[in-house]
């Protein structure tokens, strides 16, 4: 399995920078964005992003809004919400709009890695199924 491509989105620059280094050290490909808008733009360039780790509370476009738009454009991308709220409401809301799971900030690296791997697996499985369906379609069309 090729290492997952993860995008980190948070307005706290030092947090993103350090987290990037740490994830990269764990053999992940990491790209980052510092706002919702930037995240949407970045993802347009890197369509093979597997998992987005998205902070809920950001100035301007917040995490939920970003999630909605992202999911609308790229339904297969899995998103893990990062929240400072102990309340489940915002996380639940995020999951209602298609987020894979949520984590509370500051998060444990092992937990995060676990979620990222799960999400990647899910996404890859999903892609695999689509690929198989395509293959089946081609096979049936060509009459093999």
């Amino acid at each position: 399995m090729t290492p997952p491509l993860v995008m980190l989105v948070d307005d706290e620059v030092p947090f993103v920078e350090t987290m990037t280094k740490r994830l990269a050290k764990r053999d992940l490909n990491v790209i980052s964005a510092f706002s919702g808008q930037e995240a949407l733009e970045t993802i347009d360039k890197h369509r093979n992003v597997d998992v987005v780790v998205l902070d809920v509370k950001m100035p301007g476009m917040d995490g939920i809004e970003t999630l909605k738009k992202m999911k609308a454009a790229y339904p297969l991308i899995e998103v893990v919400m990062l929240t400072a709220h102990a309340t489940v409401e915002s996380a639940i809301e995020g999951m209602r709009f298609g987020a894979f799971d949520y984590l509370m900030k500051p998060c444990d690296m092992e937990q995060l890695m676990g979620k990222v791997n799960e999400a990647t697996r899910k996404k890859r499985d999903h892609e695999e199924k689509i690929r198989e369906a395509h293959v089946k379609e081609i096979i049936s069309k060509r009459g093999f």
Partner: protein
Amino acid sequence: MTKNTQSTDHYFRSLNRNIILIIIVVSVIPLIIVSSTIYYQFRASYHAKVNDHLRELVQSHVQNINHFLQEKLSNIRLLGDNWGWDRLADESILKERLATLQKCFGQDFVDLGVINAAGEQIAYAGPFKLAKADYSDAEWFHKAIQSEFFISDVFLGLRGLPHFIIAVRNSGEDGHWILRATIDFVRFTTLVENIRLGQTGFAFILNNKGELQTTPITKPTADIIAGKTIYAEFLAQPPISRGKVGVAVKLDLAEHENIYIAAFLKNGDWLLVYQQRMADAFADLDKTFLITTVLMFFGLVAIIIMAFTLSQTVVKRVAKADSEKQLMSKKVVETGKLASVGELAAGIAHEINNPVAIMVEEAGWMGDLMEEITFDESENRAEFERAIKQIQTQGRRCKEITHKLLSFARKTDATIHDVNIKELLEEMVTLSSQRAKYSMVEIRTDFAPNLPSLRVSPSELQQVFFNLINNAIDAMDHDGGTLTVSAHHRDNYLVFAVSDTGMGIPEANLNRIFDPFFTTKPVGKGTGLGLSICYGIIEKMGGKLEVESMLGTGTTFIVSIPFQKDTDRQH
């Protein structure tokens, strides 16, 4: 604190005093006005009645006496005319006539006498030895000889006893002669004595000179003499008004107020006077006054007792309500304080959370790097590792603290979005379905098609419906039932109804269910804040939260929230 208590005490004391004063003033003034008016009217009419009665009495007696005198006079005139000088001069015939008169009229006539023009008594019939008496010098004789008839005042005369006479002038061959009769003074006095009323009422007759013509029963001669001025006033009346009955009220010698009623008789020669003490004449009125006063006194006492009791009850209730209110506002303030503390804590926690997250990440990064670099096996490496671990441990500790603070504040997200009502309600119903199943409650939904979306905070609306649905399930907890959630639009409002088939809410509680801290749930089960928070949320949205309930049938909560039409929104 003491000062506060003192001022509260002062307030309640003055409230107590004011209530007492108001009750007394409001009750006593009408009582006094009504009582005095009635008494005044009664007194006036009673006075009029007594005066009329006394006038009537005096008038009828005047008539009686006049009639008596007239009758005696007629008798004597008839005797003179019928029997003539010749026969009446015969003493035996005269005695016979006197006997006849006494037989017919009782002892009214004492004696009879026949007197010639010279004043000599020619014949006499009677108990006194007055035969051959000479009246030529007597005043009455002179008056009698000059007129057809004459009724004298009371005088002592030759017999030395009070009496009065009726004299009739006749004409004979030798000129005028007089037939004279003496009227029994005692009998005559009886006529006047008959007028006796109460304890002090008596009557008497005065002549023009103010001399007594009868003996008053109580013999208050001194009074009568002292009261001469009042009699003189009556006597001084001009002849023209002498037919009327006069009334006067004056003080007598003993300083008692007396009522005097007087009327003239015997062609204005005599004055019949009736006199009575006012206190006696109006004794019944005084009695009435006494009864009224006693009743009023008891009424006043009753009013005062009532005022004190009532004011104390009212003040007690006010004080109780006041302390309850104070307790309530204290609670509200405490809740408010708690909420602000919570908000503050949440704000701080949130702000701290991010730096802590960065610190933890940095420490993590350092840890990662430590694994890569091959230090010399020195003591320092162990120390670095320990320090990084410590930073991570303390960071996690910070995280726990901030998360606890945030969960304590538990602030509902009040951000406003376009909310798809149908989805929201369906979600709420789904969330509650498991609980409903355990309580044997069937949930039905009834949503009108094409429900417009609302621009509200979805979290807040969720909270409202979560509360209403949970309450409804609680209401049917024992026996199960049907819970109906419906949504319709009416005019500019979205109207939701959450109905249960539970036991209903008693009318007494219906007004209070939206009050903060009002709950009928067992202690620890409900805070009494749910419905009051719902009410606040709906009010904030510009809507209404209403309740309809029937005991034994069920309860319906109706939420109406205004929505903006698309056209409005464009504006």
